[in-house]
């Protein structure tokens, strides 16, 4: 096996939307940068194939279009799941530069005439969504990162962080085709690996048919946790509504343009259940949709037949921006937004934050720093960035902060070259077992346990049972067999998925109330208790000891 040692100021793990912006932030501050991604940064991550929305206030004159009004909105739908001061620093302060940067690299957020096309949904007080054509956003970012001189390690999966005297000093990983093993020595490390999307049983059969990128498997959160970093908001099981057979995004566009949720009785049920109707916060729409299904009012549809011609044309065009193949899917399934409602259903669960504006994952401060020196986080892997807007703004912020930290260190390359061959061999073991279980067999069991015991209706009993079963399946991790480096990657992903599941069950057990139902719905504590639980559950691992604590946000 080839061993490759590289040194730089900053390592970015994950080259999706957040990671590429982090690389730009660090490089534009003068740092030398390594970027490692399981895929190719030109097309990897949640928006590799395209995207059509970015959440922003633009100060265009309306009273809801200011920073203060935006933060009021965060407080209203976030319900204590984020610190406003951190959101102000990692998102609000970075917003004007982020919008300008996307134009500078060649994929502006504007229409051809230079204007912003804005729509409203998900509890927003005004039109916070900018609808745009982001099909070239990742290729443009990949090109910009390479042009800045960053060393890009495509198809390299990072499996662990290097630590020295309680600081993070780089990471190790392997090339998923050649098996070359990389030892990356850096002064600062930024984790940008997204959320955890193959965590729950998938209602569309195939576990890779997910809303968000199925190759985001919580690797970064678990590497950070093992290095001593705290995680927060891990108890929330995120869900959304998606076309029945294809987990393609489109909810924002459909509802933003005026789509109405319809049950099989012909009732527009959200208009009955919530004062904001179809434009209620996402968790409210999912909650009431689950209720409709439980009452026997399914199947559920989204109805766009009433939209005017201009809106329909815009919708049909922009749906392909968010998911390139969705128009093909509608055509092959013989769906037609103009003439009949489209059947939708509740998605798989995932670890992806409680709202569009408050996240879940590695705990960060106002400078995007984790709780361990030398470690930073951004995008969906961090607890105060969410979605496209959070990844672009928070990614750049994390990159800048990591570069500043790296430059402040007085010692040489920062990383002790102490990695020993036995540690590397540990990560390669699944390749060398004469026999064993394929990763998929273990992973399917994890998803089943998560869905049945750690799902949208939780109790102390179900969560304890889930944890016990997850611990039982953990004993089989060392019996996984991989026949090539691709399967080795998937086997490491399975390890991360299981660890995230355990953290989710443990933190869900700790929070003895319900918040943002159905994302954290304790049937034995159905009420929201703002006196005792308005804040973050902080999860830490100290050696073998796991601990939960509570951090208020008000």
């Amino acid at each position: 096996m080839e061993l490759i040692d590289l040194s730089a100021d900053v390592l970015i793990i994950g080259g999706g939307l957040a990671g590429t912006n982090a690389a730009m932030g660090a490089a534009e501050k003068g740092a030398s940068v390594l970027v490692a991604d399981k895929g190719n940064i030109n097309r990897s991550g949640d928006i590799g194939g395209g995207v059509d929305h970015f959440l922003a206030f633009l100060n265009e004159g309306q009273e809801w279009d200011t920073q203060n009004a935006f933060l009021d909105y965060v407080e209203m739908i976030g319900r204590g799941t984020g610190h406003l001061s951190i959101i102000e620093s990692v998102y609000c302060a970075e917003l004007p530069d982020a919008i300008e940067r996307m134009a500078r690299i060649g994929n502006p957020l504007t229409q051809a005439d230079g204007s912003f096309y804005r729509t409203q949904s998900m509890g927003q007080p005004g039109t916070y969504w900018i609808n745009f054509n982001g099909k070239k956003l990742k290729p443009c970012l990949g090109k910009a990162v390479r042009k800045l001189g960053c060393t890009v390690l495509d198809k390299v999966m990072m499996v662990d962080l290097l630590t020295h005297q309680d600081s993070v000093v780089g990471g190790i990983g392997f090339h998923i085709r050649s098996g070359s093993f990389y030892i990356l020595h850096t002064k600062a490390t930024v984790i940008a690996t997204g959320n955890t999307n193959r965590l729950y049983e998938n209602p569309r059969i195939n576990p890779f048919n997910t809303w968000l990128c199925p190759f985001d498997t919580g690797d970064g959160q678990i590497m950070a946790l093992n290095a001593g970093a705290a995680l927060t908001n891990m108890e929330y099981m995120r869900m959304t509504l998606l076309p029945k057979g294809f987990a393609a995004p489109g909810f924002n566009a459909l509802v933003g343009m005026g789509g109405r949720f319809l049950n099989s009785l012909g009732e527009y049920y959200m208009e009955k259940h919530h004062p904001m109707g179809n434009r209620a916060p996402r968790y409210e729409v999912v909650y009431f949709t689950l209720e409709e299904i439980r009452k026997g009012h399914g199947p559920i549809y989204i109805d766009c037949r009433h939209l005017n011609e201009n809106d329909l044309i815009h919708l049909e065009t922009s749906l392909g921006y968010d998911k390139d193949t969705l128009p093909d899917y509608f055509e092959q399934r013989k769906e037609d937004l103009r003439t009949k409602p489209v059947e939708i259903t509740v998605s798989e669960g995932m670890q992806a934050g409680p709202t569009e504006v408050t996240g879940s994952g590695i705990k960060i401060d106002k400078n995007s720093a984790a709780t361990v020196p030398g470690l930073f986080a951004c995008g969906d892997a961090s607890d105060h960035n969410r979605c496209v807007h959070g990844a672009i703004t928070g990614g750049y912020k994390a990159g800048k902060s990591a570069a500043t930290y790296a430059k402040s260190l007085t010692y040489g390359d920062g990383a002790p070259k102490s990695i020993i061959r036995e540690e590397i061999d540990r990560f390669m073991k699944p390749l060398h077992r004469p026999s064993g279980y394929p990763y998929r067999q273990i992973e399917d069991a994890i998803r089943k346990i998560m869905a049945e015991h750690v799902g949208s209706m939780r109790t102390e009993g179900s969560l304890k049972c889930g944890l016990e079963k997850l611990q039982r399946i953990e004993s089989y991790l060392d019996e996984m067999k991989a026949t090539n480096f691709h399967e080795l990657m998937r086997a490491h992903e399975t390890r991360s998925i299981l660890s995230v599941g355990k953290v989710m069950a443990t933190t869900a057990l700790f929070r003895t109330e319900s918040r943002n139902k159905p994302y954290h719905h304790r049937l034995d504590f159905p009420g929201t208790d703002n006196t005792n639980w308005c804040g973050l559950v902080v999860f830490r691992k100290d050696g073998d000891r796991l601990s939960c604590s509570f951090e208020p946000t008000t």
Partner: protein
Amino acid sequence: MPPTFYMKKCTGCGLCDSICPADAIYMKEFEDTSVPYLKYPDECWHCGSCRQDCPEGAIDIRFPPDMLCI
């Protein structure tokens, strides 16, 4: 199992193999030329990146029956 490759148009450049985020597309030798094939069809996320980036327009997306019928 999208994507489908049209061998008459494909020049074997390998870009689809390089950019596929699923690591699902691989190249193989066939009659003295390099051709793409879908090694892990179940892991395709249908993101459409391969079709968008193919310089020859040699990739089509065909959804499988489970996705079209459930």
